[in-house]
């Protein structure tokens, strides 16, 4: 067990290193750099740009160094905890990301909670009452949510919320609360705005979860021990909850690792459409303007989240499922 954990921890380091290289290479891949994008933007707005000033800035920001040199500098800083400097905002990266991270976590946690709360009972119902009208109806709804483009659903719900409930369009709270300190009124405003992004981002996640839970549970319900239990007189509820469900929970736990980064960054499109003050739109802007350090450091943060999340979910799974804990020894 201990060696298993240790091995997993050690593997994380080269994984992150490879990810950092790939991230950096891809961000640098488009021709030009932050300054050429900036210059093109100024020119297309009709503002004059001094080529010499750009060259001067390029030297100042270290953008005229070779690729490997820039990469080495960046990784070196990352390891020391210095996330770098954002050209676009003119501030250190952690100041730019800081505020948005809190709201991102609120949205992500709410979405994951929504996904679990919705898919859990529906999955069980679908498995237990297989091929019933309810099963078909709920599955249909789930697939509908999966098939509808999330931004379309977002816009429809946004309009509906505004016309029927008078909630201001976009954002996570009423604009007047934007810079105000936290209060009950502000929290209520956030909750009123929260349900649209949560439903939109959550709907596609629930479909997958429902089907997985249903499939796993159906597998378990076919097994011998369930028949035995029923024969021996166990109540159907206890029969369902105590044994098969524990097995079927595997995907829930396993998915934690993948779910969090997916919800944090995979919600970029919905965040952009709904204009949420989360990290998604910030990442998109940073990538568009090739704001290297902001984009790169944030992506590395996501990579770290993913890797650590995977590790934690594997750990949880090992605790939950003895088959994994005993691993190879059991099959021998």
């Amino acid at each position, binding site marked *: 067990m201990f060696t298993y954990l240790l091995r997993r921890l050690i593997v994380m380091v080269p994984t992150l290193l490879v990810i950092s290289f790939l991230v950096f290479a891809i961000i640098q891949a488009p*021709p*030009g750099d932050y300054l*050429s*994008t900036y210059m*093109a933007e100024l*020119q*297309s*707005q*009709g*503002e*004059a740009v*001094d080529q*010499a*000033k750009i060259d*001067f800035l390029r030297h*100042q920001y270290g953008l005229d160094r070779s690729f490997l040199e820039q990469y080495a500098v960046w990784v070196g800083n990352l390891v020391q905890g210095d996330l770098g*400097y954002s050209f676009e*905002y*003119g*501030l*250190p990266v952690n*100041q*730019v990301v800081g*505020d948005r991270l809190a709201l991102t976590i609120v949205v992500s946690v709410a979405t994951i909670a929504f996904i679990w709360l919705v898919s859990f009972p529906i999955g069980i119902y679908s498995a237990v009452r297989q091929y019933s009208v309810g099963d078909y109806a709920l599955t249909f709804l789930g697939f509908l949510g999966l098939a509808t483009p999330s931004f379309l659903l977002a*816009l429809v719900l*946004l*309009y509906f919320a*505004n016309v029927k409930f008078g909630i*201001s*369009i*976009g*954002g996570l709270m009423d*604009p007047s609360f*934007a*810079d105000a300190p936290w209060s009950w009124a502000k929290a209520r405003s956030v909750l009123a705005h929260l349900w649209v992004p949560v439903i939109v981002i959550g709907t596609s996640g629930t479909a997958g979860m429902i089907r997985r839970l249903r499939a796993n549970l159906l597998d378990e319900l076919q097994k011998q021990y369930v028949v035995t239990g029923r024969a021996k007189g166990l109540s159907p509820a206890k029969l369902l909850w105590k044994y098969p469900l524990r097995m079927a929970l595997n995907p829930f736990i396993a998915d934690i690792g993948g779910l969090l980064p997916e919800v944090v960054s995979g919600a970029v499109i919905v965040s*952009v*459409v*709904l*204009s949420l*003050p989360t990290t998604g*739109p910030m990442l998109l*802007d940073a990538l568009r303007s090739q704001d290297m350090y902001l984009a790169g450091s944030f992506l590395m943060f996501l990579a770290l989240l993913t890797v650590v999340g995977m590790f934690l979910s594997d750990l949880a799974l090992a605790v939950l499922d003895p088959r994994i804990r005993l691993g190879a020894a059991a099959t021998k």
Partner: protein
Amino acid sequence: MRSMPISLIPFCSPTLRPRSRPIARASLTFVAALLAGLIQSGTSSAQSYSDAPMFADKVASGDLPPVSQRLPEHPAIADMSEAGRYGGELDMLMASAKDTRMMVVYSYARLVGYDRDFKIVADICESYDVEDGRIFTFHLRKGMRWSDGKPFDAEDFRYYWEDVANNHDLSPTGPPSVLMVDGEAPKVEFPDKYTVRYSWSKPNADFLPALAGTTPLYIYRPSHYLKKFHAKYANADELAEKVKEAEQPSWAALHNRRDNMYKNDNPKQPTLDPWMLMTKPPSDRFVFERNPFYYRVDPRGRQLPYIDRVVFDIVDSKLIPAKVGAGEVTLQARNLRFDNYTFLKDGETRGDYRVRLWTSGSGSQVALYPNLNTNDEVWRKILRDVRFRRALSLGIDRHEINQVIYYGLAHESGNTVLPQSPLFDAGYANAWAGFDIDQANRLLDEMGLDKRDDAGIRLLPDGRTADILVESAGESTEESDVLELIRDSWAQLGIRLYVKPSQREVFRNRIFAGDSVMAVWTGLDDGIPTAETAPVEFAPTSQQQLQWPKWGQYRETMGESGTAADMPVAAQLLDLLQQWRDAETDETRTAIWQQMLRIYSDQVFVIGTVNSVPQPVVAKDFLHNLPETAVYNWEPGAQFGVYKPDTFWLDESATATAATN
């Protein structure tokens, strides 16, 4: 008041008893004194100023000096249709945090600025003199102050010229190019505390337009604030501390970070705008509050602006029309397009606003740019033949485009100046802008492109089919819609049109390199020039001109890159531009403009489609002093700038009810 003398007349009646005459005399003198007082106050009403109730507490407690000491001796008096009331908050939406600069654009407080007729007048300066077009003297307002109360005088100009523009660390490339005439730097003098003089040996026709520009040339700085960050004035150790604290590489970098009057992202930097930034970036909501030392007053002597506070909410640009339609803004035009019009009109009653339609100031909403510098030799020869360009222009059904996409509200025209410009002539707008397939086909046949393939597509001299690949920046669905209509009409000419959407930077680089044959973009940036505007858009002066990028680059880099204009007509346009610069009288300048416009339209260097497209401007019902119709243009015009938002006012009672809803 005025009725009082009349009511006293009965006392002056001859039927009064004698002992009331002293009373009559006294009342007469009293009346005379009153009249005299009225007359006097009428002429010097400008001398008694008043300010916003917002400052009453601060003035009472002594935090702020009284308004007469906050205004310059002779403040600028605003011209307005209805005098307004103080108070209220103006909410606007912006698409990016960088748009704090829009406050500088909308405020339009410039040393000299354009008025509503697009003539340059004194604004921040009290008056200015121009001698021979080469000696510019600005007389500043005595007693004018920055937003933090410190004086605004010639020292701020001297600081800019000597310690910023000519400081090697802060400006490694020297003063801005608009200040250099043929490489000659200006002679800058400060005859006294409130006078600034810039002189050259040759005329500099770009100087005043640059000062009046939407993105202006600033020849002054808040010297008292910036001296703290300048190595020459600040204590060396303190400066080093500040540099380290701000995590900047050098004092010059720190100074440049703090000195950003246009970008307007530093709440601590003093400003001359009517509203000053209060929120420190980064933020999703920027609040601007009234500047207590603002230099303009209304005709009744009340210090402007009327509106207490302006708020910019930063929202994704695609959501802006939706939010505006839901009634969440007080005033908005930016990021609203004509195709949002029906949606916005629909929400008028629910949102308590009204949609006005202003006119876009662009020379053409969607314009095609045949690349005369393309690398493809065959295409280059064909595009340089004026008959080809004329034929393409005749092959566009502008009426159809106008009806289908703009509901007939636009103006069908070639890429030229708008009717609002004094230089307009219907001849330019209509040159080769009709829809005449027969004539177009005739021109193409005349050119030698009379061979066609089986599908009816014309063949080029080297056997290829006439397939024009129009490159676009892929940012506008409007462009694709127009191009689809053009594709159909050009098919009748035997020319196939393909559209290649790209990304803005790639799109531009391909054009500059000559890899593209034709591009689509918006037309003239300035559709409302006057004879005093430099006709730079009509001659190859910049690489950004997509029809002749290499010739433009040649001029921009003074011959270092690009190619010299090798078409006689283009050379002629350059020559005329030089003549304009050397011209001494308005008549000569107008004549040269007319000549250039005529050649430009006749040669069809850029194929325009429609212009004067309406721009929706949404304003709440309780916003006053906003023009009903106007031209909405970036340069000149500063979108709202020339209409002076400091004169806009909100109807308090209406604002109050809106706030409670």
